[in-house]
C-alpha cells in the first residue's frame, strides 16, 4: 500500500537489551541473580560471565573459580557433586 507520503529520518537512537541464557535465575554459589553479577563485580556483562559445567549447572565464572581453588583433592559441581568439567 502506498500513501505517497515521504519520510526522511534525520537521526535515531538504538536501544539494545540482552539477557544471559540460563537454566536458573540465581547463581547457586553467591545466590545473586545471573542478570546481575557476582559479588566482586559491579557491572554485569562480559567481564563477569556465566559458565556451564558438563553437568549443565551454571555459575558466575568468578564464583565457580573461587570454589574450585578451595578444592585440592576433587573438583566437584557444588550442586550435583559430579566431577566439574567446563562445558565447551
Amino acid at each position, binding site marked *: 500500500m502506498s500513501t505517497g507520503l515521504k519520510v526522511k529520518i534525520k537521526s535515531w537512537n538504538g536501544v539494545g537489551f540482552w539477557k544471559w541464557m540460563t537454566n536458573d535465575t540465581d547463581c*547457586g*554459589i*553467591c*545466590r*545473586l541473580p545471573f542478570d546481575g553479577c*557476582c*559479588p*566482586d563485580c559491579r557491572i554485569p556483562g562480559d567481564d563477569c560471565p556465566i559458565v556451564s559445567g558438563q553437568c549443565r549447572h551454571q555459575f558466575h565464572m568468578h*564464583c565457580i573459580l*573461587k*570454589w574450585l581453588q*578451595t578444592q585440592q583433592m576433587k573438583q*566437584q*559441581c*557444588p*550442586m550435583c*557433586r559430579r566431577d566439574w568439567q567446563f562445558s565447551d
Partner: protein
Amino acid sequence: MASSSKVTPAVDDNTPGEIGATSASIKEEIKWDPFQSPDWDLEKPTSDAIVRMKRDLHLVFSDPLPGIFIAPESDDITRLHALITGPFDTPYEGGFFHFMLRFPPSYPFHPPRVKFMTTGSGTVRFNPNLYRNGKVCLSILGTWPGPQWAPAQNLSSVLMSIQSLMNEKPFHNEPGFHKERLGWEVKSYNDIIRHETLRVAVCDVLERKSYPIELMEVVKLSFMQFYEYYSSTIKKYAPELDDTSMNDPFGINKGTFNFKKLSQRIEKLQLALSSSSL
C-alpha cells in the same frame, strides 16, 4: 562413635570414654567448635561472605522451616543461635535443642561450625552424632565421612540436616549399627532419649532460661502446646521404667529413670507459665 568398623575419622576428644575413641583415630584434628576458632578471629569476613550470610538468614526468616528457629547475634552477623524442636513421633518430641553456629570469613566456600549446647553440661549424649562435648557429626560440616560441604548448601540445609539426625530410631545413626544385634537396643536407647529429652531439653531449659531471649519466647509457647504430650508420655512410661537403670547400648548415658520427678517439674512449670510468672 567410630564403632566396630573403625572407619570414622571424627574423635570425641573432650570425652575419651566415648564409644570407639580408639587409638586408630589419631587423624588430624578437625576444627569444629565455633567458640574455639582462633583461625577465624584473625580474618575479617569478606563483603561477599556477608552478603551471602544475610541472604541465608533472610531465607530462614522468609521461608521458615517447621520446628526450626534462629536468633542471630545483634552485633555479629557471623554468629547465631538456633533452636530445633524435637520432631513428632521421635523420642526427641517436645524437646528444645539449642545450637550455636558461626559462619567462616570465607563463607560459603567453607562450612559453618556448629556446637550443640543442650548436653546437660556435657553429661548427655542425645544421639550417636551429637556428642556430649557439643560436636555435631555431619558430613556437610566436615565432621563425618560422606558428602562434604559444597557452596550450594546454606543455613537452611545445614539446620535441616541437623534436624534429620533426630529421627525415630537414633540407635541406627551409629555406623555399623544398621541392625539391632541383641533385639533390645532400639527401644532401650529410645527410652533413654525420651526421658533425657524431658529432663534436659524441656525441664532444665525452662527452669534455667539458658537460651537467648527470642528463643525462650518460642520455648514457652511451644511448652504449652506440648504439655498434653508431656503428661501422656510420663503416664505411659513411668510404670514400666521408673526406678530402673538406664541401659544405654553404647554405654554412655547413665542414670535411673524417674518420670515421677519429671512430672512434678513439668506440672510446676505449667502452673508458672499459665500464670505467666516465668
